[in-house]
């Protein structure tokens, strides 16, 4: 394992493009879908794309800080999913639906 042909053969830019596309797919999902659970899943997708980019940069630079940050991002994402799903189940309990378009009580 002295040589890693992977990181010596694949340009970093590929990872950048892949991460950007995943991120924009996540944004697309947030804008298009109306199911609250799917929207939360799109947020997870966005987080994962950023994780990928961070880990790639850290591996290509030989610096461990990026991967530590990825670790912490995962921690936060887990906590966030827990709380978010609790909220969604409350939503369902009150209105028998998880469609976000019915929550417009803040209209002016």
């Amino acid at each position, binding site marked *: 394992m002295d040589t890693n042909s*992977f990181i*010596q053969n694949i340009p970093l830019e590929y990872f950048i493009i892949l991460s950007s596309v995943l991120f924009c797919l996540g944004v697309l999902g947030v804008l298009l879908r109306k199911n609250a659970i799917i929207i939360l899943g799109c947020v*997870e997708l966005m987080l994962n794309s950023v994780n990928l980019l961070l880990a790639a940069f850290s591996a290509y630079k030989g610096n461990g800080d990026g991967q530590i940050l990825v670790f912490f991002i995962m921690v936060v994402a887990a906590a966030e999913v827990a709380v978010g799903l609790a909220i969604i189940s409350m939503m369902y309990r009150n209105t028998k639906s998880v469609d976000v378009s019915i929550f417009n009580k803040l209209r002016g």
Partner: protein
Amino acid sequence: MEQILFYFVSGIALASAGYFVLAKNPVYSILSLIVTFFCIAALYILMNAQFLGIVQIIVYAGAIMVLFLYILMMLNLNKGDESRKNNINKFIGMFAAGILFIGILGAYKGLSGNYVAGNDVDYGVGLTKNLGKLLFNEYVLPFEIASVLILSGIVGAVLIGKKDL
């Protein structure tokens, strides 16, 4: 050889992510998201970020997505009968995401296009031993605080989910 591997894995990742965003049935989209996570874990392993790859499978694909499916099943939504948006909104949504994509790519215009790691890169940076050393020496405070964060997440989730306070 590595390039073929990379294209294959990222292709599957992109395809399943696309299906996840566009699928009608929420269960199908969650399952495709699991596939995406597996691909990303594969990419992690390929660049020798072993610890992260394992953690990705355990935490994301194993715990978070299971939680998603659990909620989905509990709310009995697998029929997938959500109403659709009208066409204008969909079009503007795609337009916005496209604009975002172009904007993000525009930040990379100074790049050469073929940056590969040199020979002096520490290849073992993603190993669990090395990451552990880093984690418990320099980042021990965020580590402890992260545990408090998870505690607060648990408390919050339980509190929100209670029927009567």
